[in-house]
């Protein structure tokens, strides 16, 4: 753990250097343009200063994003519509609901696949095909259809997020539920264990490491799903709405701060699952 602090800091520092340099490079055209229209020459230091402080830069400089993040999280009441914390919460609630639904659906399908021959032979290709459908394309239709049957608010977003998150869970859990070896299954047979007992005492416990790994992937997918779901709901609130609104008004700084917030949210949730994983596996004696 400690050993990785220095490398991480180095990499982060490198990213900042590249980022600042890229900001100069990408925003220079606009700076020159404006200077040309104003009929002035730009020195290099003026150029750098300008590219790092534009209102609507092609790439905002890190400190601009940081200031925006500060302004919209710390400086605003969290109930305010201008608070990023408020918008994060809107997105997070849909994410968590979608994640829960996706995990349940994924585990259910995996159990079906492992225990039912027909499902084993038929479900997987369709599950894979389902993931090749561009969700952004059908998200609006899902929202409209659900709206038509009277479901609105959190649930439609959560359903889209579920659609993205059940996949890694199915794949991981099928692997996990099948991870007990022939010998372990035979053992259960020698004790004349019922299918139920075999599931609860053997298959489920041995699938735990797989479950946690796939839940981490699913959590990140859920967040993407919630954001996708926010785009067509009229971009009312949430990080997706911030991204969208930022894009309509060319507010790149706002886009980047929403983006980083989303990534941070995902990272925190994944770390949380990791912590739960460690505790659980430790209590199960599966980790040292």
């Amino acid at each position, binding site marked *: 753990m400690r050993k990785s602090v220095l490398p991480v800091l180095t990499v982060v520092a490198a990213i900042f250097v590249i980022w600042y340099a890229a900001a100069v490079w990408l925003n220079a055209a606009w700076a020159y343009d404006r200077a040309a229209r104003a009929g002035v020459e730009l020195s290099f230091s003026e150029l750098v200063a300008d590219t790092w402080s534009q209102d609507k830069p092609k790439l905002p400089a890190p400190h601009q994003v940081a200031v925006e993040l500060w302004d919209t999280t710390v400086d605003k009441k969290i109930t305010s519509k201008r608070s990023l914390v408020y918008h994060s919460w809107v997105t997070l609630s849909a994410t968590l609901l979608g994640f829960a639904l996706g995990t349940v659906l994924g585990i259910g399908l995996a159990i079906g696949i492992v225990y039912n021959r027909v499902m084993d032979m038929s479900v997987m290709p369709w599950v894979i095909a389902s993931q090749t459908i561009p969700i952004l394309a059908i998200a609006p239709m899902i929202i409209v259809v659900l709206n038509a049957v009277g479901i609105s608010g959190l649930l439609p977003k959560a359903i889209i997020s579920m659609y993205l998150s059940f996949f890694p869970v199915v794949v991981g859990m099928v692997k996990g539920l099948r991870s007990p*070896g022939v*010998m*372990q299954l*035979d*053992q*259960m*047979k*020698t*004790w*004349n*264990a019922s299918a139920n*007992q075999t599931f609860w*005492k*053997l298959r489920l*416990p*041995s699938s*735990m490491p797989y479950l946690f790994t796939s839940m981490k992937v699913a959590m990140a997918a859920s967040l993407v799903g919630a954001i996708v779901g926010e785009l067509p709901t009229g971009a009312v609130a949430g990080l997706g709405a911030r991204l969208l609104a930022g894009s309509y008004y060319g507010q790149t700084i706002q886009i980047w701060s929403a983006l980083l917030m989303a990534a941070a949210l995902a990272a925190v949730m994944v770390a949380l699952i990791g912590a739960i994983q460690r505790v659980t596996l430790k209590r*199960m*004696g*599966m980790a*040292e």
Partner: protein
Amino acid sequence: MSLDRGDTGVTTETVISAKGLNLTFQTNDGPVHALRDVDLDIQKGDFVSFIGPSGCGKTTFLRCMADLETPTGGAITVNGVSPEEARRSRAYGYVFQAAGLYPWRTIGRNVSLPLEIMGYPKSDIAERVERVLELVDLAGFEKKFPWQLSGGMQQRASIARALAFDADILLMDEPFGALDEIVRDHLNEQLLQLWDRTNKTIAFVTHSIPEAVYLSTRIVVMSPRPGRITDVIESTLPRERPLDIRDTPEFLEIAHRVREGLRAGHAYDD
């Protein structure tokens, strides 16, 4: 349940009986005859060892008794009924070659697993677990996880697990394969004592000639391709067997017979 007159003149009870048993696996490379025309009767209280080169069908035969494989021909009964019925009535305990403990359960809870499954009452379970762990010298290790134990200790735990419930038959597939000789000797002694005391019927697969001779009342020598029984050697050793019986001429004589039987059926090519 067939009652026979054994050659010792006492009434004996046939516990496992195979008649013309055949088992062929269908594989991609064509059929593999794992067992061909196997005939064998095991009497109650017998300690029968199976020995033979790798791939001769020892494991397969044991698995047939346990209803883990279905023979493709012939008949086999366990306690006078089909292996499936015997399995359902939990007539036997099976010890696999590898310990196969569940890493997420402590040693104690690994041993109690079959008891939970079979629905023993809670208090009874605790008492039994304690007793069998004592038996295999693992008292005090209940709370440890398998990976905190050495291979030998794990193997002993797995034996304890098979002994925890009251099965009259014990099927053991190379249970001591992974142990060093001293520990093996010790467990051999313990197993003999247990057998003597409880009058269980034991079918035991091994690769070691001395082990087979030391433990058994009967030694079944098998040979591969197709798997069949080539020799059955009755032991003339007494039931009471101290470890140094292995240096007696009688012991060496039986061991020699077994080695000859083995060599005859061996092809050197696996």
